[in-house]
């Protein structure tokens, strides 16, 4: 039932297309100057002198692990304590007929999202997770989670998990959230 035939276009093409779309057709360069808050960067948005050093070399020692990271598991992605869900907010798509990176039937993944940096307890490494909302169905009633590791406020929207992240989708109705592996955190 997992249809690869419906896979979205590759990230490079998608990113570029969306950039143009949101820019109303303007060039990529002029767009970049406008994006501001819509940009999503590495684990911690590295803007602040006070935090840059910390962000560059995340401390993954047991002492620095959050309560979530210390008790996270890697076996069941239908539970709130699955390791990738360290900053998820909403219904888990894995409980709603979808998968960890798959939207339930009839819903559509938002190409833009908020992100988290979560530690996989199996290897102790940190990974960048994109929490892509699935959009276009009413809110799924299953497996509500609200984890808040490094989750910030609205003026840093790419690290805020309350925003309805349904941009560039045909409907902005929030259905559920996925936790897509993007890569190792630097």
């Amino acid at each position, binding site marked *: *039932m*997992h*249809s*690869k035939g*419906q*896979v*979205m276009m*590759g*990230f*490079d093409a*998608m*990113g570029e297309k*969306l950039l143009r779309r949101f820019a109303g057709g303007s060039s990529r360069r002029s767009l*970049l*100057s406008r*994006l*501001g808050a*819509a*940009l*999503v*960067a*590495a684990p911690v948005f*590295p*803007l602040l002198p006070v935090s840059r050093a910390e962000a560059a070399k995340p401390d993954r020692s047991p002492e620095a692990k959050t309560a979530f990271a210390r008790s996270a598991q890697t076996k069941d992605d239908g539970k709130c304590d699955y390791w990738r869900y360290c900053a998820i907010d909403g219904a888990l798509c894995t*409980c*709603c*007929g*979808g*998968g*960890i*990176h*798959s*939207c*339930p*039937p*009839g*819903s559509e*993944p938002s*190409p*833009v*999202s908020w*992100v988290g940096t979560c530690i996989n307890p199996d290897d102790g490494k940190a*990974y*960048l997770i*994109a929490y*892509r909302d*699935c959009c276009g*169905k*009413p*809110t*799924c*009633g*299953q497996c509500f989670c609200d984890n808040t590791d490094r989750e910030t406020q609205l003026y840093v929207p790419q690290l805020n998990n309350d925003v309805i992240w349904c941009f560039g989708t045909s409907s902005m109705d929030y*259905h559920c959230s996925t936790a*897509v*592996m*993007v*890569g*190792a955190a*630097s």
Partner: protein
Amino acid sequence: MSRTVRSIFAAGLAIVFATAAAAAQTPPPAEVEAEISDTMTLPSPVPTWFFVDGGWDMPGTSIFDGETGKMKGMVETRRLADMAIDPNGRYYYVSETIWSKVDRGTRQDMVSVYDSKTLNLVTEIALPGRILIGSRKNNFIVSDDGRFGYIYDFSPTSAVNVVDLSKRKFVTAVELPGCASLIPNPGVGFSALCSDGSLATVAVRGAKADITHTAPFFAASDDPIFDNFAYDRAKKESVFLTYTGQIYTAKIGPTPTVSAPFSIQAAAGIRPGETKPLELNWYPGGRQPLALHRATGQLFVLMHMGEYWSHKASGSELWQVDLATQKVVKRFVLKEAMNNVEVTQTDKPLLFLNDEKGDGVILDAATGEEKHKIENAGGGIISVPAS
């Protein structure tokens, strides 16, 4: 552009657009595969699936696999919408009323058609109106061949809208004074229950309709038939249950006939239910108080202890009635009082029950064993694919 924001770009940091570009610009170590997002699809409706409406409090009808207890997807039903399953398994139909500005603006009545494999909206069929009530199985029915949809309207005059589902267009509105709660009537049109205690039959021929009535057989105000009754398309029979616990079987056809009723309490060896208050007894109750396993003629009824006029009360027991022998063959004691019940039409039937908080359980109908408990499944009515 502010000084601060300009400096962000000037710094040449690894700024990326969304996480999409992040993956492209900062390639992960070889062992980490960046995942791509996609969307699942479904097979045609499976006989072990339950379709649970969210009810008043929760939008959407969630599809649960009775075997695993897992949710498979959701059909977009909002409060007061009615869903019907295409008997041919290709579509889910939602009869709904939408205002252009939520509670104001232009009223739009329609049947929205969803593809059963993708759950995507295929098209909308405009309607002249429909009733706003919700929690009813029989206000939007589909003919056994899947060709016609019948949608009850109340404005507050009583009518039925006929829709040609294959041509996807509205055909006609049939005025039906004093009747509601529709039953497919193959080759004829539809039947309905009436306030005079009769069963009306509407023969639809194109835009014309002839209405006939049986003789009155039940007391619509004193001992009403629950309007969420059951219909068996293989036998062309409807099974009716009244507030006191009388069970009727109606043979549906051009001239329907209704059996003499029997009492569910008498079938269990106790005193029949009465309309007089003060007399404590077991009574049927809930929103969807009965479910019929068609092939075996087993009727499952939610029962509670109380007085008469407690017909919305949730059931603390589920009684299994064998319609052929007119006996209660089993009484299941429920852990929580339940408001709705439905049963799969499979050889090993599964029961789905939900309560007023919207929590659900799946029971093995043979043993009563609780197979799955599903919190927040939805508090509305439950449907299964036609057998």
